[in-house]
């Protein structure tokens, strides 16, 4: 029910609406819950509404933290697979 998908804003249509591409299908969504949405922003799409903007810097930071946290486990995980 709370499913939401990350999606790139392709076009701003006015009246708090925007166009996105979902697996090659063009879809019009509401951006009324967000301020200052720009083309190229990634938003979380839920039931036709953009709920939040995805922060690219924080995403990069999360992935870096994941890689950093995983370092002590890398050798073990490799060993498991061998």
């Amino acid at each position, binding site marked *: *029910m709370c499913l939401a998908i990350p999606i790139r804003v392709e076009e701003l249509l006015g009246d708090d609406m925007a166009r996105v591409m979902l697996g090659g299908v063009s879809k019009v969504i509401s951006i009324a*819950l967000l301020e200052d949405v720009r083309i190229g922003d*990634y938003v979380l799409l839920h*039931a036709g*509404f953009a709920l*939040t903007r995805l922060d690219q810097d*924080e995403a*990069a930071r999360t992935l870096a933290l994941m890689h950093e946290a995983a370092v002590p486990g890398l050798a073990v995980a490799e060993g498991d697979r061998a």
Partner: protein
Amino acid sequence: MKHIDEYRDGALARAMAAVIAREAVAARSYRFMEFCGGHTHAISRYGIEDLLPANVQMIHGPGCPVCVLPIGRIDDAIHLAMRPEVTLCTYADLMRVPASAGHSLLKAKAAGADIRMVYSTLDAIRIAEAEPGREVVFFAIGFETTTPPTALAIRLARRKRLTNFSVFCNHVLTPSAIRAILDTPDVRVDGFVGPAHVSTVIGTDPYAAIAAAYRKPVVVAGFEPLDVVQAILMLIRQINEGRHEVQNQYIRAVTAGGNRIAQSEMAEIFERRPWFEWRGLGELALSALRLREAYADLDAERRFDVETVPAADNPACECGAILRGVKKPAECKLFGTVCSPEMPMGSCMVSPEGACAAHWTYGRFRDAAKAGAESARV
């Protein structure tokens, strides 16, 4: 970066799991509840439990709105849909939920009721505009993620002066449910993997009082598998260090304060109900929303004089205990015998986010493999 595949890297998950195995103290057990159905689904689908050491257990929580909606409210929706003038618009998840006497919205539709599955509240508005002769009722359910779209539809209906649109409101509140779980005597939970998309709306602040009062760590996490694994590691570290803080793993989408526009829209339209029944958790005070007096004309409960009659679950169905995390799906007598996603007896088998449906689709194969390995040993 497309924000999906990066968080599904199997090698990275195995490496993080190895760190979890190293840091989890062998002498103790860790019981974490993932509140959301979205997490339950991810844990089952990606086999995250297989990566965890035996003393780290995941308990499936009640964060599947389809699963916690009591039968009486589904009965109400069916009664509304059976009215000849009504077109009931609903999210598809609700169609197969079992109601009283073997009914469901799907069966009501087959019997001629005008029930339409919609993707968005805006679709329901469009139907009301296109068909002014029909009374269009939107069957609104869900946690805080799904509430702002309902609020905006109500506002839009008011702006467009639609007189044939109303909302049957069943929106519920996450913090109330987490408190109810922690107040249940038979539940033992050491910490929570906190909601992903609910938290984009409400932020992480509302969990602070819960974490402090109950001394349980909460780590808000995204719905991708690496998000969940990282959150579990963060919870283990908190427990090992004797901390019980609210941490945010999902920093790319969630802030401390949440989405202020969504919050003010919700506050404008809705107020808390004094009581609301939750399947499995019972009557919870101030745990659900209804339309404010100012929007009474758009409230289907008032327009059609809905009076909910409580209805009992199938007595053999363990959905209640499963929603509280005190039983596992396979411990229910109905599981996999008369109850399956094709023929669900209980709501936990209906939604793909339900604990039973997730276990049926993915988890039971793991159990079978384990049983096979054990019998081979004998």
